[in-house]
């Protein structure tokens, strides 16, 4: 099963290496990993998608919390969350095919961000499924290249009994 794990980490050099090294050393599989700054200049957030059974993911969570510069770990599994990926995709769109591609862009609520003679660069964001679907839809026209982020996520503000599994080291 896929788990989205969110980790607040100290914003200092070497932290990514500590985290990525731990995943490699313990043979955990990372599906995606995104790092970015937060509202607090001292902290960054890593969003890590891992695949594994509950037992493996429990270890991932604990081992992550054990990495010294990792401040807080949350597992969003079973939680209502908003999860989003971002993609830039360059699709062939010859003048005669261009209207078709553009209507597809519209359908997906995507955005054209660059136009060349034979290519359109499109920006798509949304749940991973939507990104995958857009890629599939583009295939018949020819995909020149794809650049994707991994998933970032945040829990929804609903009242619920099941809270995410949190290890807060602060």
């Amino acid at each position, binding site marked *: 099963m896929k788990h989205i794990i969110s980790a607040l*980490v100290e914003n200092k050099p*070497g932290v990514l290496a500590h985290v990525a090294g731990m995943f490699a050393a313990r043979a955990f599989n990372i599906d995606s990993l995104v790092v970015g700054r937060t509202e607090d200049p*001292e902290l960054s957030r890593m969003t890590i998608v891992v695949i594994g059974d509950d037992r493996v993911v429990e270890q991932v969570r*604990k081992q992550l*919390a054990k990495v010294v510069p990792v401040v807080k770990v949350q597992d969003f599994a079973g939680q209502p969350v908003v999860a989003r990926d971002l993609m830039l995709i360059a699709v062939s769109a010859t003048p005669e095919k261009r209207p078709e591609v553009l209507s597809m862009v519209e359908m997906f609520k995507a955005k054209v961000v660059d136009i060349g003679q034979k290519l359109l660069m499109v920006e798509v964001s949304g749940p991973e499924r939507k990104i995958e679907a857009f890629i599939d839809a583009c295939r018949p026209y020819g995909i020149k290249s794809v650049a994707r982020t991994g998933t970032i996520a945040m829990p929804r503000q609903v009242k619920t009994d099941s809270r995410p599994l949190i290890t807060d080291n*602060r």
Partner: protein
Amino acid sequence: MKSKSCSSAGSADQSSIKAGLSTTLKAGAQIIVDTLIEQGVDTMFGYLGGVVLPLFDRLYDAPINFINPRHEQGGCHMADAYARASGKVGVVVATSGPGACNLVTGLATAMMDSVPVVAITGQVRTELIGNDAFQEADITGITRPITKYNCIVKDVEDLARTVREAFYIASTGRPGPVLVDVPVDIEVARCKTDGPVEMKLPGYRVRTKGNARQISMVAKEINKAQQPVLYVGGGVIIANASEELRAVAEKAHLPVTTTLLGLGSYDQSRPESLDMLGMHGAAYANYAVQECDLLIAVGARFDDRVTGKLKAFAPNAKIIHIDIDPSSISKNVRVDIPVVGDAKIILAALVKEVEYHERKRWFKKIAEWKNKFPFSYDRDSTTIKPQYVVEEICRLTEGRAIITTGVGQNQMWAAQFYRFSRPRQLISSGGLGTMGYGLPAAIGAQVAKPEALVIDIDGDHSFNMTMTELRTAVENKLPIKVCILNNGYMGMVRQWQELFYNKRYSKSYLSNPDYAAVAEALGAVGITVDKKGDVPKGIKKMLGVARPCVVDFRIEREENVWPMVPAGKSLNEMDGLDILESMA
């Protein structure tokens, strides 16, 4: 650089004179030494090199007992054993590149056995990092998976705080080695140091207390168990919790088995002791674990050398796990009741809630196993049996010595036939199984305990790996003793080849030097014992000399360690029981 109060070495004096700050500016190297002293360091180990010269210059008149090993690996093992014997943090220094790389085996050894070590390595100048500079190695990259934490200091302002944090991280929670890499320009850069700098570790928290409700649940389980077993690891020794362990075991009347690293946490002469469990553990300990209805693990981590086949481990037992490291819990074995915290605090709380139960049937069953399958060997043999040597060492030292070991059969015989009665008495590389650990470990332990009798029970090939450190012992007048159980083989490897590879002894034999002559050449005393009748005499002679001494026991060459749980088998599927039974 972050702050104006810091400056590079070259400009430091000028700018400080201008600012009138010369009295309050301190060089990085001095900050390191002062912080070490502040942390209570009076002894350290290390080796020189270009980029640590500023640091060594500051050590020249520092009030620190400094031991130079002959190889950084030896120095790291010494710091590790110093920590294990004393309970304090061991400190080792090495230069960049090759010096730092030579620490790798020692750090991995300390990591596996949760030993508090702080390693300080020199690094090339900050602006050269990444340029393949002379003697540059990415030592934080290399040691990241084998340290509890490591970092490189890039600003002299951060130095005091980082060194302080290193000691705190190394010695708290589940201890472990921490490496601090210091570029040489940071050693010479000066900065203003007024007053202590606060640690900044928002991501590091240690839970010590243990959840009261879970502790009560544990007590309830213990009170109703018919066939309980306490399974104790090195964590109890690290936590200085032997007294509390004894109180619980006595009050609740529980049999106690320990891991290799747990030996000494529970006096083996006590009736509840089941000695060591695991691959070469006591048959009665392994049977008891397999048949128990409640297994209480304290400061142990269900290592594969302990559990055998995981799926068949303690099949009828509820499992309780008391450990300070949450990630240890349910890592290998599904735990029914976890308690995260310090073993000393938790056991002290637990003892108040447990009750005495006689458990007559259970103890009777255990006594039968003990009678039937004790550790034993052919006492009538005309050759020198290694087990006999260890028994004699134990008898003639009245079980009081601190024992260090090599790795292999020698280590198992030391664990099986020496009787340990107090914590920190056995110092052995358990998790990593590092050959060559025994001699430097004996030196580190002797430095920590100058009055103690320290004996390294070693294998010939383990000794070969680090025997150069004998000179370190001689130079520092450390009267350690080395008893080599010399079978001429990499005995443990040979045993596996005998049992699982049709006696094809592929490359497990190397020619050895005359160890007594080597010892003498290095300035120690050398003794050779090649007749069974001379064993007690040889040991007595060794104990009589006040200098470092090596005794080369020419033991039975193809003796095996029994019992043995073959890899992948469950704990009750031991080989060699017939041998033990016939010799019992």
